[in-house]
C-alpha cells in the first residue's frame, strides 16, 4: 500500500512537484475498500446470507417502495444488497492481492532470466509467451477454472496462469535494456555472478515497473474473478461476490435493475482506483518524471 493518504497534509516545502494527485486518489479509494473488507462484519447492516422472502426484490430505500433498513434494496431471495456488496469486497481484494503478486513473481522471474541471460533461456521463455499470446485470455481462464473446479484457489490459479505473460513480456524487455547499462558491466568486471547481479542490481531497477504493473493487475484480477463468477465458475454462488451478483442481476435485469447496477459500480470504482494508483506510482517511482 502506498503512503497513508492525507491529501490535506502540506507537501514538503522543497517539492515543486507535489505528491501525484492520481496516487492520492487511487490510494484513498483502495484504502477505503481495504477498510470495508476488514471491518465488513461491523459495517454491514445485515447478514449477507440471511434470506427474508417477505422483503424480496425491494428497490433502494430512496425509491418508491424502498425500506429504510435496506439502503440498496434486496435481491430475489430477500438478501440485503448493501451487506452482500460489503462482504464481496473480501473475495475481490483477496483474489486481487494474491493473484497479482503470484503472477508478478512468476512472470518477473521468467522475464528477468530471459532478458538477462538471453540465448536458449530467452528462446524458451519467448516461445512460451508466444504460445500463451495465441490463446484468448478470457477463454483460457474459463477453461482453467472448469479444469480446476469451483473455488477461490482455482480462480487465483486461473488468473496467474493466464496473466503471468503481462509481467514476463515487460520485465524481459526492460531487463534487456538494463543489461546494457554501465552499472551491470562494472558489476560483471568485479566478477559478480549473474544471479547476484540480477537480484541485487537489476531487480531494484525494474522493481518500480513491476510495482506499477501489480497495481494494474489487481484491477484486472478483480474483473477476471467477476467474469468467472458471471459464467458460474468461481466460488459457490451462496457467498457474495460482485461477479455472482452481476450474474443474478443480469437474469432479472428488467425487474431489479439495481441488482445489476450496484455491483458494476463497485467493480468500476475498484478498477479505477487500482488504475489511478498504478498511474500515480509510475510517475512517483520513475526518476525521469520525479526529477
Amino acid at each position: 500500500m502506498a503512503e497513508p493518504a492525507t491529501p490535506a497534509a502540506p507537501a514538503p516545502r522543497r517539492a515543486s512537484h507535489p505528491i501525484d494527485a492520481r496516487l492520492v486518489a487511487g490510494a484513498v479509494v483502495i484504502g477505503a475498500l481495504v477498510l470495508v473488507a476488514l471491518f465488513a462484519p461491523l459495517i454491514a447492516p445485515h447478514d449477507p446470507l440471511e434470506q427474508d422472502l417477505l422483503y424480496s426484490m425491494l428497490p433502494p430505500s430512496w425509491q418508491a417502495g424502498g425500506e429504510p433498513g435496506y439502503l440498496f434494496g434486496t435481491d430475489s431471495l430477500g438478501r440485503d444488497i448493501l451487506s452482500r456488496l460489503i462482504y464481496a469486497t473480501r473475495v475481490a481484494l483477496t483474489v486481487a492481492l494474491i493473484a497479482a503478486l503470484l503472477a508478478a513473481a512468476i512472470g518477473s522471474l521468467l522475464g528477468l532470466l530471459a532478458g538477462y541471460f538471453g540465448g536458449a533461456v530467452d528462446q524458451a521463455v519467448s516461445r512460451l509467451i508466444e504460445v500463451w499470446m495465441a490463446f484468448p485470455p478470457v477463454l483460457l481462464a474459463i477453461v482453467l477454472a472448469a479444469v480446476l473446479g469451483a473455488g477461490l484457489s482455482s480462480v487465483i490459479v486461473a488468473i496467474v496462469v493466464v496473466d503471468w505473460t503481462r509481467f514476463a513480456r515487460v520485465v524481459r524487455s526492460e531487463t534487456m535494456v538494463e543489461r546494457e547499462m554501465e552499472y551491470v558491466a562494472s558489476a560483471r568486471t568485479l566478477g559478480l555472478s549473474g544471479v547476484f547481479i540480477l537480484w541485487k542490481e537489476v531487480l531494484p531497477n525494474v522493481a518500480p515497473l513491476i510495482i506499477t504493473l501489480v497495481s494494474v493487475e489487481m484491477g484486472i484480477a478483480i474483473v477476471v474473478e467477476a467474469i468467472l463468477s458471471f459464467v458460474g465458475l468461481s466460488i459457490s454462488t451462496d457467498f457474495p461476490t460482485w461477479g455472482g451478483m452481476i450474474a443474478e442481476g443480469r437474469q432479472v435485469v428488467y425487474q431489479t435493475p439495481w441488482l445489476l447496477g450496484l455491483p458494476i459500480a463497485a467493480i468500476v470504482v475498484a478498477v479505477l482506483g487500482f488504475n489511478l494508483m498504478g498511474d500515480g506510482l509510475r510517475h512517483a517511482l520513475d526518476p525521469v518524471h520525479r526529477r
Partner: protein
Amino acid sequence: MGRTALLRRLLLVPPTLVGVAIVVFVLLRVVPGDPIAMMIPPGASTEDIDRLRAAYGLDQSIAVQMLAWFRDLATGHLGTSISLRQNVGSLILGRLPATLELVALATLIAIVLGTALALIGAFYRRRAGEWAVDGIIGIVVAIPDFLWGLIFILVFGVLYPVLPISGRLDPRLPVEFTTQFYLVEALVTGQLSVARVLLSHMLMPALALALPLSAIIARVLKASLAVAESADYAQMAKARGFSRRAVLLNEALPNAAIPTVTLTGVQFTFLVGGTVLIERIFSYEGIGNMAVDAVINRDLPLIQGIVLTFAVLFIAINLLIDILVTFLNPRLRRG
C-alpha cells in the same frame, strides 16, 4: 520489420500452433466432469456407456487420443462435438461469420473513435480540450469490455430502452439468408431495413469491444502526433503557411499512424478475444458464446476446435499487422 524477419515469423507459426494444440489438449484431459455422463439418458447400461466412450475415442490413453486428433487435424477434420453431435468444423464455420462481423464493426468504431479523440487532444494541446480528452482516455481505458457491455445493457437496454440487448436478429423478422454473413449479405443485396435491425443488435456489443481499444489508439496516436508535429517536415509545412489543422491531418497523421499500428496490435487481439464474453452477455450467436457453452458442457472436441480457431485468428492478425507496418513505412519496404 524486413522481409527476412517476416519470413522468420512465418516459420514460427506452425510450432506455435502445435504448442497451442498440445497445451489445450493436455489441459482438457484433466477436466473433472465426464462429457459422456452428461449426454446419456438415465438408465443406460454400462455397455452402452462404454460403447459411447469408445465411439468418441475417450477410452484410450491421452497420448493415443492426441495422436488421433493430430492425424484428423492434418486431414482437416476437427472431430465431432459431443454435446451437439455435429461436425466441429462445420459448427465453427456456421458461427464464425457472426463473430467476424462483430469484430469488424468494433474495429471500425475503435479506429474512428480513437483517431478522433487523438486529433482533438492534439489540436487543443495544453488547453482544456487536451485535459478533457486525457480524462476520457483514462476512464475508458481502465474499464474492460465486460463492464462496458453490462453498463450498456443497463442504460440503453433497460433504463432507457433504445436498443435490443440480446441476439443477432429479431427472431420474428421473416428473412432468409444464403450465407452466414448476415450484415454483408443484407448490405450487398440492398435490404437496408434488415441491415438496420442487424446493426441495432450489434451496436452495443461492438461498442463495448471497441471502447478499450479506442482509448489505447487515442493515447498512442496522440503521443505520436506530438512527435510528428515537431519534426522538420511538419515545421516546414507550418512555416510555409499551412494551417495547424492541415499540418496535423496531412503531415503528422500519416507519420504518426506507423507507431500506432505497431503498438496497438496486441490490443487488437484482446478485442478479438473479448468476443467470448461479450457474445455471452448479449446472447450473440458467434463462436465465443458457443465456446462458453462448450466449456460448461465439457464438450472437449468443440472446445479444442474453438481455441485452435482463435489461435489461428490471433496469429493471422499479428502477421497482418506486421505486414501492414512494413507497407506503411517506406523505409522498411525494401527488405
